[in-house]
């Protein structure tokens, strides 16, 4: 092959490649300017857990340990306790409540079994996904980090509407 054909061939390849690249420039962007711009997450996204409360602000969790039993990575630790106070003054909806409720995010695989197991709809997955920490011990979140009334929600996400098609582009390929 002569040097001339080589130059022609490679120029064509560059043009071909660049044409694909350039054709995407006018199209809608896939990248998000995170963190300046919020990330859109699916409604069923499984982020950091939320522990819910009822209308009176009492924790819904009754410390039945079913989430801990269902968890395949054994990252939930609960200690139950008795709350002898009158129903309105209680911490939880029932006499039995979780004195300690820890999730170790160093182990959690975000499978959602705990949510599935909960008979009281007390635990769900939230959307917070920024879980990186400087210290591994900080991956252990306590009840106060998980309670819906106390967990600080990140400004960096937006939940998609249920009919919004967020990632169909990816399904095509």
């Amino acid at each position, binding site marked *: 092959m002569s040097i001339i054909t080589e130059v022609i061939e490679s120029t064509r390849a560059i043009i071909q490649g660049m044409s694909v690249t350039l054709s995407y420039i006018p199209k809608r962007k896939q990248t998000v300017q995170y963190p300046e711009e919020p990330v859109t997450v699916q409604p069923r996204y499984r982020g950091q857990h939320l522990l819910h409360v009822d209308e009176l602000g009492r924790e819904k969790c009754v410390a039945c340990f079913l989430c801990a039993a269902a968890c395949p990575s054994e990252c939930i630790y609960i*200690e139950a*306790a008795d709350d002898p106070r009158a129903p309105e003054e209680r911490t939880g909806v029932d006499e039995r409540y979780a004195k300690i409720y820890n999730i170790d995010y160093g182990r959690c695989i975000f499978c959602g079994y705990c949510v599935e197991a909960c008979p009281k709809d007390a635990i769900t997955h939230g959307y917070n996904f920024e879980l990186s920490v400087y210290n591994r011990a900080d991956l252990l979140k306590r009840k106060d980090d998980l309670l819906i009334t106390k967990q600080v929600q990140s400004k960096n996400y937006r939940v998609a509407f249920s009919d919004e098609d967020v990632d169909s582009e990816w399904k095509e390929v």
Partner: protein
Amino acid sequence: MSTELVKVTINAKDFQVPKGARLIDVCRENQFDIPSFCYYADLALQASCRMCLVRIEKMPKLQTSCTIICTDGMVVTTQSEEIEKARRSMLEFLLANHPLDCPVCDRGGECELQELTFDWGNLEERFIEQKNARAEKYLSPMVANDPQRCILCKRCTRVCDEWMGEDAIEAGNRGANTVIGTYGGWLNCSQCGNCIEVCPTGTLLDGTYRHQARPWELTQTISTCTYCSDGCQMSLGSRGDELMRIVARDRYVNGLNGEFLCIKGRFGHPFVNHEERIRTPLIRYQKGGRLVPATWDEAIRFTAQKLDGIVAARGNNSLAVVGSPRLTNEALYCLRKFAAEVVETENYAVADAFSLKPFFESLGGPLATHQDIRHAKTIVLIGGEPEELQPLTAKQIRQAVRNGGAKLILINSVPIRLREQAAQFIHIRPGTENAAALALAGNADDALAARKMGVEAAELEILRQTISETQGDVVLMFGGELSAEAQAVVAQMPYTFAGEGRRILLHPLALFNNSVGALDLDVNGKSVSDLLDAAGVSIHAMYMAGSLLPEHMPKCGLSKLDFLVVQELFETETTAFADVVFPAASFAEIDGTFTNNDGFVQRVRKSIEPVHQSKPDWLIVSELAKELGVDFGFERSASAVFREIAERIPAYADLRYPLLKDESHPLQVKHAIASKRELAKEIAGIRRAVAELSDDGVKVSETPQVGHELFKLGTLTDKVPQFHLLAAGNPTPASFAISPLYQITIDEGIKREKAVA
């Protein structure tokens, strides 16, 4: 049950079964599963749950297999569409009023109702009517109650009546309004908690472990109780480093006690993780100074130096070694070895309340096991109060009388509660128990014995006659009231009374969990009070494992010692005199064995790691021995200690830990049986002592209160808050809705008064 066999056909298979066998048992033994709630072996029949329905040929309707006795040629079907339908409908009825609160129910996960609902329940509930809601409440500091969960199987009421003889818990009202409860709403019983244990649902629950853990989280370790000499088998449920609860549910353990436990066994465990446990070795460098925390190395070195010094200056016998009947055989053996081989002192004793040495030296027949007591035909109880001190023995006696038709002869100075079961109650004057031994030995001294005891001579005649006319087993029991001579006489009674078709079994009512083991391992059987009397005179240092009993305390002479070492769990009145205190591990943290009053050697197993820096008692002694130049060579292994016990102590020959694995077949120590011998000397001695008693002592006519011994606050039970309520007379709280612990503050005054009494 006779040995005659009858033929039954179950699901087209033929079986030969003993005549009189119960159908439900036969089916289960042959692996045909029959669900049941109300059937409970060895309790009166109830037949109310109707889960056990089977089809029996030639019988009009489905039959409850729990009430049917097998007859020859019976043809039974346990599985068919008809039966399945019936069982499913029965379960649907049982669940009609059952709340769906398994997530908060402490029974969830080990609930019989839950399990059978898995097998026989329907996916959906058809009853949409309002449920009969009833609030949760407490029945006593120990028993929590959620009446709505009840399925009215009445196991609790039957157990309370037949096992405990208390009738404290009963069914009230009728029909759909029937509810299990108690008169006045507050239980004033012995708080054994057996109703909790047998309840197949979450109706009756452990009030001390309420809402704390779920059963599947707990590691279950089978072990032996650390309180009385009955040696109940129990399951310690621990989570991490914490002992959470104790149960005897037979799914975890199947020992000599079945599902029976008493208040102490079941609820008396919070001392294990109590914050007042001694955390590190403590040294008092100066008499009158403070106990200062030290490292193990430092404490062992300090102790070794001091002991060495005292022995060098004053001779080997100036050091005494004192064990406790609460320790394991391993610990007692190491102590004895320490005394004999390291410091070579003759002064070794065990701080027990009374010694059974004379009894075991004259032992003329086998010891009665609890199984033997249950099936005995005559039971003679001299002194003692098993309801309070050996509750399992009391339960076996009650069942023997109630379900087995046994005759109970009670010889006691107090009309104890067992009197209700007694066929003959020989009500004697206080302090005249020894005269009963005289009466057993023969009629020569009847006039004297009857006069001193304050009874008719004829009563003693009946006593002897009943024993010698019995067909079956006779069990002779006695408490700590008997003198050494009287013990020897009772121990020889098998030679007097045994005959054709009649065995005489003996059952000493020792006080502590390892009283019998401590005796087996004792070398010269010195009494601890003698050693204490010699304190400051010929004994100048003491090495103690465990504290002294309160009765030894008043004139204990410990203050006269130059040096006192104590191994303990808590700071006690004894450690107040100590120069060095070693933190010992409790029964839940060690491996070992206890020997109970049946002579059974039973395993104690480690449920949690030793708390803080504590170590097993035997290990502490071994380490000290090593520092003093003698290596026991046990290498931190309790089983190595036990192997040496088996080699050196004839009664324990051939026993090994692996052989003790199965708690349902405990092994008995081979206590040497003494041959028949002349008792004239002993009898003369008793006669002399009895003759000196007064003729007109006043008899006690009042039945002692339930719990007067059980609820007493000791070093261990003091750590259970609920015990303080009971010791203060179990006051009824203002509201039953929450635990009385949250409502009543115990007045220090009441508490002390009770504790001392």
